[in-house]
């Protein structure tokens, strides 16, 4: 009986030793591999602004940082070259889509928009309020064209086709300053977005701010928490090896805190998109970026 107990204790000690070894090993890993806030991002020779004084409307933060800053060296390097950046396969596909005739009107995007370059500057100030007083986002503009002018079917908000085209359009504003309007007609939706940002939801009872304002720069398990900026969206995530959209990521974040996500393309996410975009006013558009 005593020998039996001794062997159990012996095994427990072994288990602890192994755990302790793993823990010590984990703590000893140098975090130098994670690039600091001092690194500079140039893409195809163009210098991006990845850190800047926070816009006046942000009360709790002095400086804002692009998500690029929080990733490891190897991931950062992927974004610096348009060939190494895997997002560009999807941009290439989107160019094909841009030129493809679809729908009852027998048109392609290119039939009216002579090249993707005509969209230069658009993404930098989206979402925005249109002349009818509605807040509009790029996917809505695309689907509007498809259904009303091409006689084609709507695309899913975060499906591959939409993500690619939004990425292609966004690329035309790369290097330009994010500059979304938060006043005038936009202010009521902006306030709604701000409230959503700071409201705790879900089983884990967390708000966007809990991670992305209170804890950016800290590690959440082994992930380096960013400020949750969207100036690089749609982004190629290493995690799923494809382009990810803004509302797609909002939905994912809400699922991670065990909340019922709002609808992609719905009023809540659009308001949130406006508010979150305004938190990056002053950073440059990085679409299509590379993230974890």
């Amino acid at each position, binding site marked *: 009986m005593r020998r039996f107990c001794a062997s159990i204790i012996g095994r427990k000690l072994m288990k602890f030793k192994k*755990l302790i070894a793993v823990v010590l090993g*984990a703590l000893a890993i140098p975090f130098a591999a994670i690039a600091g806030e001092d690194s500079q991002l140039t893409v195809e020779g163009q210098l991006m602004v990845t850190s800047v004084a926070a816009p006046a409307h942000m009360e709790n933060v002095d400086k804002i940082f692009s998500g690029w800053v929080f990733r490891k060296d190897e991931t950062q390097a992927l974004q610096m070259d348009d060939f190494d950046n895997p997002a560009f396969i999807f941009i290439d596909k989107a160019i094909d889509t841009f030129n493809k005739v679809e729908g009852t009107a027998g048109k392609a995007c290119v039939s009216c928009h002579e090249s993707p370059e005509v969209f230069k500057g658009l993404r930098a100030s989206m979402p925005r309020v249109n002349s009818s007083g509605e807040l509009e986002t790029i996917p809505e503009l695309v689907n509007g064209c498809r259904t009303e002018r091409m006689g084609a079917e709507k695309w899913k908000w975060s499906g591959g086709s939409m993500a690619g085209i939004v990425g292609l359009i966004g690329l035309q504003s790369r290097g330009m300053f994010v500059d979304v309007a938060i006043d005038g007609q936009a202010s009521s939706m902006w306030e709604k977005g701000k409230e959503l940002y700071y409201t705790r939801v879900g089983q884990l009872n967390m708000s966007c701010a809990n991670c992305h304002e209170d804890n950016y720069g800290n590690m959440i398990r082994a992930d380096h928490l960013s400020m949750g900026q969207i100036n690089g969206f749609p982004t190629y995530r290493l995690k799923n090896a494809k382009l990810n959209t803004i509302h797609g990521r909002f939905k994912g974040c809400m699922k991670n805190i065990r909340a019922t996500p709002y609808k992609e393309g719905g009023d809540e996410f659009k308001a949130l998109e406006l508010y979150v975009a305004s938190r990056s006013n002053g950073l440059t558009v990085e679409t299509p970026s590379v993230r974890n």
Partner: protein
Amino acid sequence: MKFTRRDTMAIGGAAALTTILPSLSSAAIPVNELIMGVTGGADAASTGISLTAPEIAENGNTVPISIDAPGAVAITVMAAGNPRPGVATFNFGAGSASQSATTRIRLAGTQDVVAVAEMADGSFATAHQTVKVTIGGCGG
């Protein structure tokens, strides 16, 4: 088996601090065995080949690696802890300017990445490196 409060707290505390996926060493094939598998039992020199891989991978889905072995005919890359160790074999032809290549691989967890070069004279060279693979952050 009954855990005392002390046990539970100790295990819980230690587990909470463990952010790195535990090494797949118990399930991994020993590095020497992988090397022998390529050389057919012959020895492999530890110089003449370089393997570049991150110390900590941002995401196990896409880990950039490079291999370089001047004068090699072929380089075989293996991942000791993956469900299947084979990753790729690079065969260099007369048109190659160097016996080097860069690619991106999948690693199931923290493990050794092993490269074995077969030289033109039939000899072998090998290099290996542990790559730590981290768990994603928010569970997302």
